[in-house]
C-alpha cells in the first residue's frame, strides 16, 4: 500500500527536469516558439538519448516497458520546462501501434519509434472538436482512407500518423502518402503546432486491435494532458512567485501586499493538491480498469480548468509585462490552452464523467 513514487520515478523526474532546464532555457524556448515549427532536432535527440521515446513500449522493441504513471511524470516535467516537440503524441501513437498492431507491424515500426529515429502522431478529431468515433466519418475502404482530421499535432513533421476510424479501429499512414494533404492550422500553442489532414484515397495499414485500444489511448492521453497542465500551471505559479518577490511598486515588493500574497496562495491552493489527482488517474488507467476512464476524464477536466484560471491570474499578477509576447507567461498559458481542448474540453469531459457514473 503505497501511493507515492519509487526512487526510480523520482530520479526519472529529476533527470528530465535537469535536461529541460539545461537544454531548453526560456531564451531558446522563445526562439522555438517564435519560429513556429514546435520542434528542435537537437532537443528531440536529447529526449531520445534519455530513453524517453519508448518509455511505455515493450522491451523487445527497445522500449522501457514502463507505465502510464512514468509517462505522466515525464510529461509533467517536460511541461514544467515548456519543452516544444512531439513527445506526448509520439508516445501515444507508438503505444497505439504496440497495442493494436500485429507482430509484423510492431516489428516494423516500434524499434524506430522507441529510439526516436521515427516520429509518430495521432489524428483523431473531426469537425469543431469531435473526439469520439461515434461522431467521425473517416473510414478505410479497400486499404485506402477517406476523411478529414483536424487538430493533428506535428502533422507535417511526423513519419507515421495513427488515424482513428469511425468504426473505432486505428489505421497507420506514412508521411507523404498518396492522397494525403496536410493543411497547417495556426495553433495557439506554437510548441505543438497542429494541422488538418485530408485523406482522399490514401493508402494505409489498418491495425488489428478493436475499439478498446482507441479507448485506452484516449484514457492515457487524458492523463498525460492532465499531467502536462499540472506541470505548466506549476511553472506559472513559480514564475509569479519569482516575479512578485522581485518587482517593486509603491516602495515595496509586490508580494508584500496582502492582496497579492493571498491571490498567489489561493492560486497555488487550486493547483498543488491536484498532483495526486493525475497520479491516481495514471495508476488507475493501468491497474484499476473500472476506474481508469472516469479518473482520467475527471483529472483532465479538473486540472486543465484550474490551470486555465491559474494562467489568467498569473498574467494579472505580472501586470502589463505579463501581457507581452516577450514575457514567459504566455508560453505556458498557451500550452494549457492546448491541454484544455485536446481530447475534449472540461465541460464535455464532466458530462462524460456523469454518463460513466450512470447519472
Amino acid at each position, binding site marked *: 500500500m503505497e*501511493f507515492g513514487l519509487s526512487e526510480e520515478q523520482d530520479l526519472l523526474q529529476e533527470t528530465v527536469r535537469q535536461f529541460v532546464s539545461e537544454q531548453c532555457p526560456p531564451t531558446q524556448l522563445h526562439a522555438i516558439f517564435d519560429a513556429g515549427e514546435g520542434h528542435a532536432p537537437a532537443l528531440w535527440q536529447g529526449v531520445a538519448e534519455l530513453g524517453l521515446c519508448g518509455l511505455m513500449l515493450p522491451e523487445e522493441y527497445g522500449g522501457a516497458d514502463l507505465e502510464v504513471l512514468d509517462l505522466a511524470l515525464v510529461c509533467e516535467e517536460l511541461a514544467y520546462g515548456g519543452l516544444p516537440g512531439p513527445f506526448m503524441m509520439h508516445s501515444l501513437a507508438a503505444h497505439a501501434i504496440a497495442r493494436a498492431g500485429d507482430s509484423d507491424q510492431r516489428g516494423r515500426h516500434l524499434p524506430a519509434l522507441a529510439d526516436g529515429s521515427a516520429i509518430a502522431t495521432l489524428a483523431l478529431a473531426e469537425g469543431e472538436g469531435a473526439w469520439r468515433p461515434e461522431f467521425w466519418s473517416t473510414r478505410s475502404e479497400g486499404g485506402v482512407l477517406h476523411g478529414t482530421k483536424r487538430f493533428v499535432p506535428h502533422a507535417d513533421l511526423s513519419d507515421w500518423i495513427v488515424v482513428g476510424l469511425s468504426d473505432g479501429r486505428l489505421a497507420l499512414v506514412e508521411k507523404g502518402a498518396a492522397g494525403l494533404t496536410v493543411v497547417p492550422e495556426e495553433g495557439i500553442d506554437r510548441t505543438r503546432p497542429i494541422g488538418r489532414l485530408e485523406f482522399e484515397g490514401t493508402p494505409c495499414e489498418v491495425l488489428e486491435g478493436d475499439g478498446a485500444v482507441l479507448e485506452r489511448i484516449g484514457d492515457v492521453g487524458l492523463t498525460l494532458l492532465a499531467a502536462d497542465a499540472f506541470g505548466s500551471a506549476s511553472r506559472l505559479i513559480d514564475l509569479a512567485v519569482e516575479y512578485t518577490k522581485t518587482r517593486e511598486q509603491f516602495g515595496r515588493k509586490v*508580494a508584500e501586499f*496582502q492582496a497579492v500574497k493571498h491571490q498567489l496562495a489561493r492560486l*497555488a491552493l487550486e493547483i498543488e493538491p491536484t498532483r495526486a489527482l493525475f*497520479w491516481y488517474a495514471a*495508476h488507475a488507467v493501468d491497474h484499476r480498469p473500472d476506474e481508469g476512464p472516469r*479518473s482520467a476524464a475527471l483529472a483532465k477536466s479538473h486540472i486543465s480548468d484550474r490551470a486555465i484560471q491559474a494562467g489568467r491570474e498569473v498574467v494579472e499578477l505580472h501586470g502589463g509585462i505579463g501581457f507581452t509576447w516577450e514575457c514567459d507567461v504566455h508560453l505556458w498559458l498557451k500550452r494549457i490552452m492546448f491541454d484544455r481542448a485536446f481530447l475534449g474540453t472540461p465541460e464535455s469531459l*464532466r*458530462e462524460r464523467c456523469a454518463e460513466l457514473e450512470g447519472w
Partner: protein
Amino acid sequence: MDLEYSEEHRAYREAVLEFLKGWPLQGEEANLPEAEREALFRQRGIDAGYVYRNVPKKYGGAGEPADPLRDAIVREEFFRVGAPWDLLNQGAGMLVPTLLEFGTEEQKRRFIPKALTGAERWCQGYSEPGSGSDLASLQCRAELDGDEFVINGQKIWTSNANEAHWMFGLFRTEPQARKHAGISYLLVDMSTPGVEVRPLREMTGGSEFNEVFFNDARVPVTNRVGEAGGGWAVSRATLIHERNLIGNPNMMRDCFEDLLTLARKTQRGGRPAIEDPHIRQRLIEIEGYVRTVETSNMLQFSATVRGDALKAMRPMMMNKLYSTDTMQRIQRCAYDLLDGEGMLAPSAEDITGWGRNTSSTGWVEAYLFSLGPAIAGGASNIQLNIIGERGYGLPRDARPPEKT
C-alpha cells in the same frame, strides 16, 4: 505505486477482523448499558494492541511501535463495523499528545489514562472575544499567588465546555513579557469556584459553543504544562494535532454522497436534478475537489509512512483550507438545489454540524454551519499567509511593532 497491501499487512488486517468478531458484544455483556459496553470493548482493543496504539502502556495505551499503515487498517475496520476505537475528542485527540510531548511524569500519570477512557472529558480554552485570528493577543490573566494561579478573564468558542471536567488552555501569566512570550499552558478543573460556563447560541439555532468566565479561579501551579511563559510553543504542537482531526476525507465523501442523494430526489423540469446538464456540471466539478482531497490525502499519508513528509509539506499546509472550501462547495450546491424548502429553519435534529444530511432542513443547517467560525475570515486569511509565506517563501506583511 501500489494500492494493495503487503502480505504482512493483509495478515494484520485478518487479525483485526478476527478480533472485531467480538463486536457487538454477545450474551450477558450485550445487556450492559451502552457506555459500559463501549468502555469494555475499548479496553479489550487496547489490550489487543488496536486502540491507542501509540500511547505507552503505562499511561493506559497499547504501547505498540509506530506503524501508520497498521493505524489505518485498524481505523478502517473499526469504523466499518462501528466498534469503539480511540476517542477523537479534545482530551484523547489533543491533550494526550500534548502531555506526551510536554507533560511531567506526574501530569501524564494523572491525566492521560482518564482522558483515554473518557472518564474525564476535556475542553480547549484558546479563543477569546478580543483575540480571534490573532490568538497570541489573548488577555485572560493567570497571576501567580503562592503556589496557585489566580485566573480572571474570559474564553469563547469553547465547545463542550458545559460537559467537560477539565479545560486545557492558554493564559497570560507574564503580562510584562512580549506578546508570545508571556503565555502559559494550564490545566483547569472546571469545577473550580469562579469558573462559569455560559452557552453561546449560533445562527444555526444550535449551541455547540460556550463562553467560559473566570473570576478569581485558583489553579495549582503544578497544573502548568511546559515552561512558565512557554505555553505558545506547547499550543502550536497541539494545533498540529487539531489539524489532523480536520479534513477527514471520509466525512467529505459522505457529504458528497448526501449531495448526490439530494440531486436524485430533487426535481428540475420534471426530471431528477441529477439529469439536468447544469447540475451535472456542478456536481462533477465538485467531485474534482472531493477526489483531490481523497487522493492528496493518500499521497500525504504514504509520504508520512515513508518518513518523507517534507515532500508533501505544501499539500499538508493546504489541507485545512482546501477541505473547508470543498465542504462549502458541497453545501452551497445543496442549498442551491433547494427550492421553497430553502426558506425553512433547521429543526433540533438537523443541528449536526459536519454530520450527515438527509433532509432539506438538514442542508439548510449545513449551509449555515459552513459559514461558521472554523472557516471564518481571519482563519482563512491566516491559512493563506501560511501557504504564501511558508509554502512559497513570500515575504511577510509589513506589520506594526509588537506591543510589549
